[in-house]
């Protein structure tokens, strides 16, 4: 069983590398990079929600913190490798502290949702209010509602003059998402990952078996925060400006919608959702007859009412029916919510 999964993984990686070289011929690479960044963000929520059962309404907070801390460090340091790492660590640390407050207080799902939402709003308000020159971290002025432009974008480590941009940036993003996917793939198969999956299925049972649920959830939350920070740092480098809108409610909503549409419980689902909806938004953004919110809202309602498992599990069921799968045992392992990702990402 493990072996089969590895075979899937290797085929998946090879396929996605092929896709990586084909895609730029079909869609503009500038858009593609953004889709990949969104996919990483979706992956971060899909991971903690689908595997640990933590529905965070404020994933945008970590995304924004990642982007902001990248920009702040980049302005102060002037070279991108250290800021890039710090941009992952800062939101991870923030998530660790926030997670510890929430999970060690044993707050229920609803309060988790409310608190993460409120924290996102605090950050949004705060970031919007930092227009004056007194709000500066080192050399970096936070800039209030206008945001922070003019920071060092990604460069080849050690060479501040050689920027990674255009096609190279696209390839970098693609390689990063493949690495994230493989990392999470193995993480879900490690003992830590299995315990997290079990917590997502039945928290009380795991508590009674003797694991410290609070610790596992906090660490899982921090990993999700770090991943979101990674995508934030990439976004900052892509957009070349960070604004308080990164913290907005709309951003948080979008991440959740990606996960719902793609399907939580697998790693490929959120990526599928982010790519599909990202493309949809891209095409809808070019017309002005129908408002974007309206479309996204309808999609969300329809999926909650009729397709609560999302597209990826539904598609994989269809796939399973069409190509009669040999090992039926795996089906038994798949519970209602949590599915093992047995196919590669559709990128």
């Amino acid at each position, binding site marked *: 069983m493990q072996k089969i999964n590895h075979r899937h993984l290797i085929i998946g990686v090879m396929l996605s590398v092929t896709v990586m070289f084909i895609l730029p011929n079909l869609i503009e690479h500038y858009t593609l990079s953004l889709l990949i960044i969104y996919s990483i963000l979706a992956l971060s929520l899909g991971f903690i929600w689908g595997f640990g059962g933590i*529905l965070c*309404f404020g994933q945008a907070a970590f995304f924004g913190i990642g982007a902001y801390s990248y920009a702040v460090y980049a302005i102060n340091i002037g070279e991108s490798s250290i800021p890039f790492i710090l941009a992952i660590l800062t939101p991870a640390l923030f998530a660790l502290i926030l997670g510890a*407050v*929430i999970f060690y*207080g*044993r*707050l*229920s*799902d*609803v*309060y988790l*949702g*409310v*608190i993460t*939402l*409120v*924290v996102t*709003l*605090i950050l949004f*308000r*705060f970031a*919007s*209010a930092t227009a004056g020159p007194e709000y500066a971290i080192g050399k970096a002025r936070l800039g209030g509602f206008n945001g922070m432009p003019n920071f060092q974008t990604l460069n080849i480590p050690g060479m501040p003059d050689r920027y990674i941009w255009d096609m190279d940036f696209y390839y970098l993003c693609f390689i990063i998402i493949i690495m994230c996917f493989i990392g999470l793939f193995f993480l879900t198969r490690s003992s830590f990952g299995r315990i997290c999956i079990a917590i997502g299925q039945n928290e009380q049972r795991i508590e009674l078996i003797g694991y410290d649920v609070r610790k596992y959830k906090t660490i899982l939350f921090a990993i999700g925060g770090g991943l979101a920070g990674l995508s934030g740092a990439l976004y900052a480098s892509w957009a070349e400006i960070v604004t308080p809108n990164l913290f907005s*409610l709309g951003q948080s*909503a979008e991440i*959740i919608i990606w996960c*719902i549409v793609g399907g939580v419980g697998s790693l490929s689902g959120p990526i599928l959702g982010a790519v599909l909806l990202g493309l949809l938004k891209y095409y809808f953004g070019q017309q002005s007859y*129908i*408002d*974007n*919110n*309206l*479309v*996204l*809202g*309808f*999609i*969300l*309602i329809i999926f*909650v*009412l009729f397709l*609560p498992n999302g597209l990826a599990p539904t598609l994989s069921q269809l796939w399973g029916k069409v190509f009669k799968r040999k090992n039926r045992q795996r089906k038994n392992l798949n519970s209602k919510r949590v599915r093992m990702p047995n196919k590669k990402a559709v990128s």
Partner: protein
Amino acid sequence: MDLAAVIIVEILYAIASLVVISSGLAVIFGMMKVINFAHGEFMMLGGYTTIVAVKSGINIYISMLIIAPLVVGIIGVIIERLIIRHLYGRLVDTMLATWGISMVLIGIATMIFGNTTEGITTPIQGWTIGDYQINGYNFFIIIVAITIVSLGYYLLKFTKLGLIARGAMQNPDVSAALGYNPDRIYMATFFVGAALSGLAGGILAPLVGLVPSWGTAYIAKSFIAVVVGGPAIIAGLLSSATLFGSVNQIFSFLFNPVFGEVALLLTAVILLRILPKGITNSIFKGKL
């Protein structure tokens, strides 16, 4: 002295406006346990209804106290019948579905009214205390808040209707066995909640420039007011509104309005950590 009076009025106003904006949510979330993320958009609809009614020549008080709640209440019932009634008892799914509803409502409002600010003028003149100017409309909001709270208390505590509603919220099966249709009661309660949100939107409409995404500014505030308040709807709403209103205004005076809001939200996070089940579950236990 003048400054003190002004500050007291401002604090009372902050408390009252928190009560006004949270009361609709208190009914929908506090009684029905439906996490209504579309609450802010119900308010936005109330605001637009008021503005449209006033601009078509209807008296401003009639439009915001009667027309806005009615229209939003009816929209609320339609939404409840179509979507929310299928999701009772599934907390996370209702959260997501109402979030979808809120986006749809924002989208519709943007398509109808466009992304421009709409506004009407306040019907009450301001007056001066010493060197300071006070907005007369603040007193109107304080009076409305007092009316909402006392009417709500009276309805829930002393009338048969309130008793039936409370019974159905506590145990729908028992109330069904006693001959009251819980489905109908839920529908009526949702109507009341939505109507209160519409009222809040209508009342606040003259104070702000209305844009389709206006409601999102209030959703977090009203949520934490209700959640921190805890299970007792009215006592909870009053105590948390008092606390948060004072915190908000005091910090606004000391620093600036944005810090007032940040302080409010931070207090909420800390309070939720200390009293995860709300104020009324630990301090005013057993009250209504």
